[in-house]
């Protein structure tokens, strides 16, 4: 497989080399939601694979939902961290046309964070029961300090 550099000109808001030995990333990038698919195609064309896709609930400090992608290569390892901040409630474009790995990964982000991906072939929950009415990894859900008081009558 080809080991070329991804052509990301004009697609990123910020980009910088990083110290892999310190944090595990060779490069860090920030992009806007509209560039996600083009960036994904660029990485795919350069022989990279989508290593990880997740999200961070940054509503408390940034009032945004952050999408986090890492792209990497087999062999000449080069980890690119790509973050993309979304307005709360906004959706992101799917990158499934660029890489099939995003199919399940985007479903997991939807399941855990409630972020929708426009154009995803079948955006449905993947881990939680289908009839769940919550998104598990949001910061205002499921915290220990919010647990209901134990019922005294219930057998522990």
């Amino acid at each position, binding site marked *: 497989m080809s080991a070329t550099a991804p052509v990301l000109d004009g697609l990123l808001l910020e980009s910088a080399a990083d110290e892999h030995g310190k944090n595990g990333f060779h490069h860090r990038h920030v992009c806007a939601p509209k560039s996600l698919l083009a960036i994904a195609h660029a990485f795919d064309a350069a022989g990279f694979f989508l290593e990880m896709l997740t999200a961070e609930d940054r509503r408390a400090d940034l009032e945004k939902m952050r999408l986090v992608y890492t792209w990497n290569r087999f062999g000449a390892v080069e980890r690119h961290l790509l973050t993309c901040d979304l307005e709360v409630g906004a959706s992101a474009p799917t990158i499934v046309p660029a890489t099939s790995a995003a199919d399940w990964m985007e479903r997991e982000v939807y399941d855990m964070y409630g972020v929708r991906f426009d154009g995803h072939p079948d955006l449905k929950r993947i881990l939680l*029961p289908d009839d769940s009415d*919550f998104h*598990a990894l949001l910061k205002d*859900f*499921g915290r*220990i300090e*919010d*647990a*209901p008081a134990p019922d005294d009558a219930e057998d522990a």
Partner: protein
Amino acid sequence: MRFGLLEDLLNKARANSLWPLTFGLACCAIEMMAAGAARYDLDRFGAGVFRPSARQADVMIFAGTISKKMAPVIKQLWDQMPAPKWAIAMGGCTIDGGPFKYPNQYAIVEGADKIVPVDVYIPGCPPRPEALIAGILKLGEKIKAGRRFKG
């Protein structure tokens, strides 16, 4: 009465040939399989014949954490088992949620006895194969004494 002797014989037979359902959920399943393997050999207790179908099994060994998504499946399998049937809760997760129990846990059912009546509880995380064997023998004692939950 003569029927008492027959019931005793039947219970001895049931206790010495418990056929478990192949039902591993998580980590405990590995120790359950190890109990069935060569070193610990569950077969010498008559319980080595794991049945894939619930309709042919008489004991359901819950081996692993019960997630909320899995709970209805478990109930369905339990209902499919014909009486007399027994349940063994193997491992901390099936007793009360084990290492995954914490206040406001959203994903798991904290204990198998929230779904089915459990006959024997085996603590451990995971319990050693010997512990599982001890649990099965304990269940055997319970059966021979003629005690079980109805249905």
